[in-house]
């Protein structure tokens, strides 16, 4: 048993949770949509990666320049055609719509791709690792995943704080009605936010499929961890989401060292404990969601 190793592996795993969760966090923070199909859309990203990389005969990383823009366009399309319309009918409608979308995606994937578990071709990165010290070996793939999550979150943070688009996003998150009144065109803002959210989900899906295997129902499990990361970190807070994901990952791996059977249970208990003690999340402030987005 090696605690330091467990913490390091947990942290790296947590990066994966954060990567899948940041899109959820963004979607909720800006549009007030709880996207229950987020995990399934990530899995769609993995399947698209599978089709592209086996079709072209290249590792899945090579297909990212095609895959991510495609996911961005899908996200924009979903926002304009589905989520945006649902939002006009109160807070419950988007929940029902995304829940329905989740079921549709899972069943369509089962029809189109069967329930067989799949893995993605990650090239040389998949099996490469390096020794840090005795008992601590870090997989390049896990490290890449973690660094990618950090890069994506930092990039989002920079976009939100330092660009005119980011200002509009934060203003809209603060107060939708006033954002419209001062002349912000909310629809393109929402569409680009949804595009980015789904693109990050697809990227997370690619890592899920490279690190482990996936099948049409993987999205639901993924969604639960992503949700817990968002809630633990504080809804709408990107850095909180990273911290939440890392907290989940460390808990899962450290408890798994003791007894693998309790690993996921411990994660859910941590989630319950945070909800009880700090229902707003560890990094939530008293400001509106836009505060923490910026």
């Amino acid at each position, binding site marked *: 048993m090696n605690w330091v190793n467990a913490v390091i592996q947990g942290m790296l795993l947590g990066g994966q949770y954060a990567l899948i969760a940041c899109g959820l966090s963004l979607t909720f923070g800006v549009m007030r949509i709880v996207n229950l199909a987020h995990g399934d859309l990530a899995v769609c990203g993995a399947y698209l990666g599978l089709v592209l990389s086996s079709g072209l005969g290249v590792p899945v990383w090579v297909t990212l320049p095609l895959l991510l823009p495609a996911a961005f366009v899908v996200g924009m399309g979903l926002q304009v055609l589905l989520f945006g319309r649902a939002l006009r009918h109160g807070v419950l409608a988007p929940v029902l719509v995304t829940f329905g979308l989740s079921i549709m995606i899972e069943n369509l994937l089962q029809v189109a791709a069967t329930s067989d578990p799949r893995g993605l071709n990650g090239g040389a990165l998949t099996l490469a690792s390096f020794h840090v010290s005795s008992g601590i070996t870090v997989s390049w793939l896990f490290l890449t995943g973690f660094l990618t999550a950090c890069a994506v979150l930092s990039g989002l943070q920079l976009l939100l704080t330092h660009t005119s688009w980011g200002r509009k996003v934060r203003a809209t998150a*603060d107060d939708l009605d006033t954002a*419209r009144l001062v002349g912000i*065109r909310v629809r393109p803002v929402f569409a680009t936010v949804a595009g980015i959210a789904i693109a990050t989900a697809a990227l997370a899906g690619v890592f899920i499929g490279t690190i482990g295997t996936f099948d049409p129902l993987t999205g639901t499990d993924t969604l639960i961890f992503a949700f817990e990361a968002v809630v633990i970190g504080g809804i709408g807070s990107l850095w909180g989401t990273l911290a939440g994901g890392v907290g989940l990952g460390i808990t899962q791996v450290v408890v798994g060292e003791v007894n693998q059977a309790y690993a996921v249970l411990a994660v859910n208990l941590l989630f319950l404990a945070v909800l009880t003690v700090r229902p707003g999340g560890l990094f939530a402030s008293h400001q509106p969601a836009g*505060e923490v987005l910026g």
Partner: protein
Amino acid sequence: MAGTLLEVAGLDVFYGDFQALFGVSMSVRSGCATALVGANGAGKTTLLRTIAGAQPPASGSVRYDGSDITAAPPHRRVSRGIALVPEGRKLFASLTVEENIQVGAAAAASDAWPLERIYGAFPLIAKRRKQRASTLSGGEQQAVAIARALAAAPTLLLLDEISLGLAPLVVEGLYETLAGLRSAGATLVIVEQDLRRAMDACDDLVCLLEGRVALAAPVAGVSRDQVVAAYFGEVRS
């Protein structure tokens, strides 16, 4: 007499089943200040929001600068020169003062109001430009709300209860700024609870009573008593 910049006709506006405006018509002369007065719930804010495009009317029309804008979305109205300073200021709490003003320029009609000119008009908030809007005093927040609207380079500026909750001296300063805007050619519609201040600052006056126009006249042509009567619905002139 100056030409008409804004003309609303027969506006009916509903919130669900509740009707807030009943066939409201009024016109605003170009380059003039119009006071919009009335008791709480008379429909003043609803009228301003309808002009700004936040509230679609069930019937009636809004004409601005010679064209019908009844169906135009808010951002298009902003880019044509209509800006609203909303009731309760409604600043973006997590944005800095400067970011609030920059967001106000998102659909600006022209670049007539760059940041330097705005800070020149509001030296107090220039010092606070990097602070979050939510950390400012009430008067400073109101100044930022006006600055945010000015950033859109408006021809028609709609101001909803800018003196609410502010010290008289602060209100005095804000009205001096408005007087400066008027002499620069802006057309103003001012919702104001203080009747005397409204009559002092404006050329025309429209009084709403329970969603209907009770009185519309040049300020010079009405007495304070007539306005008070229209305000409370005692006498119809």
